């Protein structure tokens, strides 16, 4: 019953997508607005259909309808309700179904919000989004059909992957990731629309700015949530392992970040047209590539889903997308020549160029490292993996340069910087750099990258705060406002700019967290008997007892630990091993005591059956919490940047594009 309903709605959505894409293109070519209109309707109806299909699946999961293949695969009567619901995205088929919903939602809202924009740009973009949608619906009725009827109906299922059941962040990470990944489809579709329609000025960029930033926020948050999950669940006290799945979400983030910066150059100076189009096309293709890498089983990864024929569909889609985009990008030739030119090497646009160069190099490095095992196996027949040292060696210099530019860019004006401006803006940050770097050296830090990271973070922090201070001071003088009011109004009046700077502050916070936790991490393995304790940094950790407990969907073995500072009890920790579905392989759940200056992170590694001793891994991880806080700040900054502001609307009314401004299409 649900199988039929689910499969039926997806099949109709597929048919509608194909129809809509054709109708939009034919409608534009033959100037028949009613055809274009019908394509928009197809996009709206698709959203409703995908919503129904997803609800049907959630319903099937909740009522344990094991006649639906996906439920038989990930459902289990013992699993708590909440986990049952989120197991919608815990395995391949369900995640593609959810993906389809997100894509349909983006498509419908983009089509709706830009419906009044005249010209062929929007219809072409609509067609592009519908084609992308058609691909995913095709997966859903073909190789990744979650609604396959199962006969005979099993009495119970195995339950979702224990790794995913083990932490609340798994409820958060995948939806964020899909919202980020799929959101990149919108600017991509408008870029393709711009190429097809010949509207190659900055119109498409202005129209999609909010979409891009929104997707970028989700992608940033998803990456940070993924790091956090990895830290809290996997038990190795790390958050980034250059795992192919991590890389898959990181690469589009890098190109999207480059895009967010370089579009400003095009808006201001009419430069970098081809570059911007290429960046957003790359971003989109990298999201598809990332999905391919993680869903096809082509690379080895802790998170990889099962393999099947689905990989071939993705290869086909990537090939078509790449060929099509390259033909459009190279075929336009002279039309895409930049109108503007660089005036001075000391200007904000130069910094943006460097930022883009570095981010591109970064992307290439990660791409090469990720694909190299596949290349090596295809060309030389050997199984290799690319070690983390490769990534660290290659990307750390790039990270340092980016951190430095983060401070330089906002302080430089467009076109040309005068020497006295430079002096005024960089004296304090320069001093901060020297002081912090010197202090790190004096405190015994000897890793060059550690010293550089702290120094540059100080430099950039001062430079960025200086921008806020300068703007606020100007307002205080001009309007006689109090400092806080001036700061608030300053941000409110120019949300895009200061939202960006706030995101920069988040990046600095992350950089400091990463630098501190990776340079000063201390790990120690120890076997303790009940009553014994071990020294960990400023604390003593005492092992009290080992216990076990039956929970509905799992069996837990845990250890009670007491944390003491100078002999006084200051907290308790209970690292656990969770056994799901009576598998004899447990999932580690570390116990973490988070404090601003350092985390105390303890794993229960092994234990004696009678509780007479247990082995722990005790880790001191300095300042790691600033990574998560930084992620939050980045999201906040992005959020401020997409908020519509009074100032922006007025600006839009005066600026350049009469069409976008007049129709209010610049959403």
């Amino acid at each position: 019953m649900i199988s039929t309903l689910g499969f039926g709605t997806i099949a109709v959505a597929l048919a509608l997508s194909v129809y809509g894409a054709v109708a939009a293109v034919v409608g534009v070519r033959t100037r028949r607005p009613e055809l274009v209109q019908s394509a928009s309707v197809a996009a709206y109806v698709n959203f409703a259909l995908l919503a129904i299909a997803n609800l049907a699946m959630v319903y099937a999961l909740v009522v344990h309808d094991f006649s639906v293949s996906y439920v038989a695969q990930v459902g289990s009567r013992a699993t708590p309700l909440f986990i049952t619901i989120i197991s919608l995205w815990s395995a391949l088929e369900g995640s593609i179904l959810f993906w389809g919903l997100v894509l349909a939602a983006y498509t419908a809202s983009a089509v709706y919000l830009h419906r009044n924009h005249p010209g062929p740009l929007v219809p072409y973009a609509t067609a592009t989004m519908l084609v992308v949608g058609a691909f995913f619906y095709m997966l859903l009725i073909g190789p990744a059909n979650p609604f396959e009827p199962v006969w005979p109906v099993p009495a119970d299922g195995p339950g979702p992957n224990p790794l995913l059941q083990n932490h609340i962040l798994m409820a958060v990470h995948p939806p964020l990731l899909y919202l980020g990944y799929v959101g990149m489809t919108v600017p991509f579709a408008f870029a393709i629309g711009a190429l097809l329609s010949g509207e190659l000025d900055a119109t498409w960029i202005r129209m999609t700015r909010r979409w891009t930033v929104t997707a970028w926020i989700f992608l940033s948050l998803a990456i940070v949530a993924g790091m956090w999950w990895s830290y809290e669940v996997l038990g190795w006290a790390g958050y980034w392992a250059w795992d192919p799945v991590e890389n898959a979400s990181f690469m589009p983030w890098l190109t999207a970040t480059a895009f967010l910066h370089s579009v400003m150059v095009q808006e201001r100076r009419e430069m970098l047209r081809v570059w911007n189009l290429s960046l957003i096309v790359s971003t989109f293709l990298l999201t598809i590539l990332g999905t391919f890498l993680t869903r096809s089983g082509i690379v080895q990864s802790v998170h990889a889903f099962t393999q099947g024929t689905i990989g071939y569909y993705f290869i086909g889609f990537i090939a078509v997308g790449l060929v099509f985009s390259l033909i459009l990008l190279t075929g336009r030739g002279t039309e895409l020549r930049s109108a503007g030119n660089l005036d001075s090497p000391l200007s904000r646009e130069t910094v943006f160029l460097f930022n883009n160069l570095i981010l591109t190099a970064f992307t290439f490095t990660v791409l090469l490292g990720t694909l190299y095992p596949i290349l090596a196996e295809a060309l030389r027949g050997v199984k290799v993996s690319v070690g983390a040292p490769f990534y660290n060696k290659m990307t750390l210099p790039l990270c340092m340069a980016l951190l430095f530019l983060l401070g330089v860019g906002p302080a430089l004006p467009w076109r040309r910087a005068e020497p006295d401006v430079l002096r005024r803006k960089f004296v304090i940050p320069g001093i901060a750099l020297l002081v912090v770097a010197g202090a790190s050296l004096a405190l015994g830090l000897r890793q060059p990258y550690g010293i550089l990271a702290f120094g540059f973070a100080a430099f950039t922090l001062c430079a960025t705060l200086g921008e806020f201070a300068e703007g606020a001071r100007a307002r205080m003088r001009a309007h006689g406002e109090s400092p806080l009011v001036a700061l608030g109004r300053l941000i409110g009046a120019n949300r895009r700019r200061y939202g960006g700077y706030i995101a920069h502050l988040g990046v600095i916070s992350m950089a400091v967290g990463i630098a501190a936790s990776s340079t000063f991490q201390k790990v120690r393995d120890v076997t303790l008997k009940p009553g014994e304790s071990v020294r960990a940094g400023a604390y003593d950790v005492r092992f009290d007892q080992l216990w076990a407990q039956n929970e509905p969907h799992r069996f837990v073995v845990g250890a009670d630990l007491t944390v003491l500072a100078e002999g006084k009890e200051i907290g308790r920790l209970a690292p656990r091993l969770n056994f799901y579905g009576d598998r004899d392989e447990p999932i580690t759940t570390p116990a973490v005591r988070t404090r601003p200056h350092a985390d105390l992170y303890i794993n229960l590694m092994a234990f004696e059956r009678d509780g007479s001793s247990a082995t722990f891994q005790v880790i001191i991880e300095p300042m790691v919490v600033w990574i998560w806080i930084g992620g939050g700040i980045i999201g906040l900054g992005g959020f401020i940047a997409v908020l519509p502001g009074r100032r922006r609307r007025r600006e839009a009314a005066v600026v350049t594009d009469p069409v976008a401004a007049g129709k209010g299409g610049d959403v």
Partner: protein
Amino acid sequence: MNLRSVLIAVLVTLPLVAVFLRGMRSDPRFVPPAIPGQPAPDFALVRMPMAADEEPSDTIRLADYRGKVVVLNFWASWCVPCRVEHPELVAVAREYRDRDVVFLGILYKDQPGNARAWLNEMGGEVYPTLLDPGSRTAIDYGLTGVPETVIVDPSGTVAFKRIGIVNREMLVREIEPLLAEVVRP
């Protein structure tokens, strides 16, 4: 659209696609099993009775089938993919009934009661299923999960091992050449 850009596009895309297609053919998570080309680890396992009250009686040894092709299928009633491949195995077992091919199921981490019910639902027992307490045999065969299928040639050597679902075509392709090795008395 002009020829030059089409050419560029195709030249960039083709190698990438070729590498990916090649990559799809190998399993990156493959840990070499202790198997192909090796003597198949022997076992002596009791046959799962098809009635609940029946005592397990016959012990089946792999060595008993020297001179025949043996298809070992590791399965469990809780395993969804096993449902998919079971009809194929049954079909091939019926097809080769009168030739020197022996099909044996080996139950993996499952209750005989559930397994019996499952077999009955799937159309009844066509070839015997063996019980593997403690999964000793599964470990000997380097099992990573179910379903997995191993084909042992007439000399007692592992000729084929498949992690995941098998289908009729695959089985016939492996069995046929091995049958040629069978020396008829």
